[in-house]
């Protein structure tokens, strides 16, 4: 419709042009306005990386964002790691590209899966995610809402070891604990130890196991039919989850070009070569196309689930103990719990009985 109008306007006569001006409202410029405003405001994104140590997490983050976030990192020796607990470390950087500012926060989880006894080693991570949700919840319900800091985790890159045959028990435990709270994107790390047929087999294996254990990883949304053809093609290719990635901090010389890669006696692995690994796909998905969608899913789905759960808990506690003060105004429960329903039913029956008695008495009086 709009194309038709535009075409017509080229050949329009002055009278027609006046008509067109009357018909043309002008809200087609909204996307441009949004663009302008968002560039002014800037973006923020919180990315969590999790997986056993030695799988190349920091190298991959370096390759993705082309900045060195981990200066002077201290790696523990094997002895120190026997009974290590999981820490949460946050690194924040401000990066800018073509006028668009991004405040990037990387949440690192050193010590995950490293100890000999890894029971519930994902608990500090779930606690952290819940904490961020809670803080946002309080800020949102507060009085002054102008400057809310959004520290919620938008995406979690989970690194699966390529040396095994699929998911390990600790992988399954972690993903099950976090799949309802965070968008999980599983990755096969250090994919340069797998030949293409092995990669295919492993991906299939992992997809099967994810289905078997009922884990909800981040699904790329189906694109609309009038999106770019490129985008659609890309979308189809993106469905090759989990991505098999290789990261590199070093630039090597290959075929006369300087590329990011790893140098081996038998060849050079290029990180940005689509035939070598899925790094490019991951980067495109994570940064170039779906970054905002990840944020939306976090806000609309995971955060809302948390909020509803939180409020329900609070109000059910309040009905038991009405003396407690609530910092947030109580909202009516959409689904009353079983106890209150029972009470309500009993009261209803009593009322009915009394009404019947009244009626009988009235009748008696009338008879007499």
């Amino acid at each position, binding site marked *: 419709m709009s194309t038709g109008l535009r075409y017509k306007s080229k050949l329009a006569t002055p009278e027609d042009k006046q008509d067109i001006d009357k018909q043309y409202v002008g809200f087609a410029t909204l996307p441009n306005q949004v663009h302008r405003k968002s560039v002014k405001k800037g973006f923020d994104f919180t990315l969590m990386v999790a997986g056993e140590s030695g799988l190349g997490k920091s190298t991959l983050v370096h390759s993705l964002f082309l900045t060195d976030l981990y200066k002077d990192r201290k790696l523990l020796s*094997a*002895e120190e790691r026997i009974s290590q607990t999981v820490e949460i470390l946050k690194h924040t950087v401000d990066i800018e590209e073509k006028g668009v500012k991004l405040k990037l926060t990387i949440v690192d989880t050193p010590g995950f899966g*490293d100890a000999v006894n890894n029971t519930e080693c994902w608990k500090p991570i779930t606690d952290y995610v819940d904490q961020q949700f809670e803080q946002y919840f309080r800020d949102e319900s507060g009085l002054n809402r102008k400057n809310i800091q959004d520290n919620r985790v938008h995406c979690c890159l989970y690194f699966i070891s390529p040396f*095994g045959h*699929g998911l390990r*028990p600790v992988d399954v435990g972690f993903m099950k604990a976090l799949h309802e709270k965070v968008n999980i994107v599983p990755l096969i790390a250090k994919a340069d130890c797998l030949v293409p047929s092995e990669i295919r087999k492993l991906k299939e294996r992992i997809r099967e196991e994810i289905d078997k254990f009922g884990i909800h990883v981040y699904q790329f949304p189906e694109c609309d039919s009038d999106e770019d053809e490129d985008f659609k093609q890309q979308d189809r290719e993106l469905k090759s989850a989990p991505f098999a990635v290789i990261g590199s901090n070093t630039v090597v010389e290959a075929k006369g070009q300087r590329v990011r890669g790893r*140098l*081996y006696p038998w*060849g050079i692995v290029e990180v940005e070569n689509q035939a070598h690994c899925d790094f490019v796909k991951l980067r495109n998905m994570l940064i170039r196309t779906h970054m905002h969608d990840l944020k939306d899913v976090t806000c609309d789905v995971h955060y809302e689930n948390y909020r509803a759960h939180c409020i329900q808990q609070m109000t059910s506690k309040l009905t038991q103990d009405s003396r407690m003060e609530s910092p947030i105004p109580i909202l009516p429960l959409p689904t009353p719990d079983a106890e209150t329903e029972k009470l309500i039913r009993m009261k209803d029956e009593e009322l009915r009985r009394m009404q019947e008695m009244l009626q009988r008495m009235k009748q008696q009086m009338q008879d007499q």
Partner: protein
Amino acid sequence: MAATDLERFSNAEPEPRSLSLGGHVGFDSLPDQLVSKSVTQGFSFNILCVGETGIGKSTLMNTLFNTTFETEEASHHEACVRLRPQTYDLQESNVQLKLTIVDAVGFGDQINKDERPIVDYIDAQFENYLQEELKIRRSLFDYHDTRIHVCLYFITPTGHSLKSLDLVTMKKLDSKVNIIPIIAKADTISKSELHKFKIKIMGELVSNGVQIYQFPTDDEAVAEINAVMNAHLPFAVVGSTEEVKVGNKLVRARQYPWGVVQVENENHCDFVKLREMLIRVNMEDLREQTHSRHYELYRRCKLEEMGFQDSDGDSQPFSLQETYEAKRKEFLSELQRKEEEMRQMFVNKVKETELELKEKERELHEKFEHLKRVHQEEKRKVEEKRRELEEETNAFNRRKAAVEALQSQALHATSQQPLRKDKDKKNRSDIGAHQPGMSLSSSKVMMTKASVEPLNCSSWWPAIQCCSCLVRDATWREGFL
């Protein structure tokens, strides 16, 4: 002469003198005899592979021995570590080898990792051998030796350092078995990283006191090569059973989009070194070390635990059998004593419970008696009350009957008598009626006759009143009778 003889016998054996031979005797063929004997007997070798699931243990075994040992792929979700030994008979140019490969299935997969099953398995093999050795009728030459001769420990190529589980496991195993650490899937580490990684690993092993197997450097024939190889530990290996065409040859290799990793290329990985060391040069030494060092250590610990000593206080060597017998007797007597104790305890307990039960019985009985008595009391009281009630009802009934009778009589009488007298007499009767004894005075005869039944006085006076008039009346005569 006698003195030197004594010297000779009382001291330790004197140093043997070395003499030179006049000609060729021929005992230089002794090693050959040994070799031919062992070749006919056949050799046995046991390898234990320890490493995470999927790290390439089975593939490496296939590559090393250039054959396919059929093993199914293990899953990551085993509940605990179990050891799976599989024995194969191999032959190469008339030398027979009985190869046993023991796989630690499920190692490192559990959330709470456990390495004890491996240690237990190794100890169990030692124990079996020890039992065979201690038997009275034993056949050691025929015995299938299942003791582990070498443990290949597969290290994950993280590039940083050892994992905590690796350290803990190797510490436990180093005194029980020859450990050769290997870096598995080494085609994921570049050369520079590999060098750093190896140094880090060896550093960690040394600083934690883990004793890995050192290739022996005391035999001049192999000392040099062994010394060189010792410096290359741990070996970074790549395994593959697929063949790829490189140049114009078919070699075992892995084909990547960026190149081909050849297994037997020394530049690519240390597979050749491992094969050389493990099979071609030091296999026999590994077996010997297992027997002379690790097994002996185990045996000594075990026997010391059981209470044996090499020599008694007065330096008389004990015979193993005697000590064993003595221990056994002690043990049996201990056992009997314990049994007795337990029986006593049991009997005491039974007695106690019996007493308690008797007490309870008595109490119950008492209660029962008490209740019975109370019940009888109640019953008696109730009976009394009943009787009283009956008496009262009877009295009431009689009075009622009498009143009725008198009423009917009074009706007859009052028709013939003046009412006034009647009334007076009635009044008097009312006043004095309630004293039966006193009212009897005026008409004794009739009273006495009339008092056959204990009648109420108010019913008498009408009768007495009527007596004078009733003489003529027939009814009086009835009453009199």
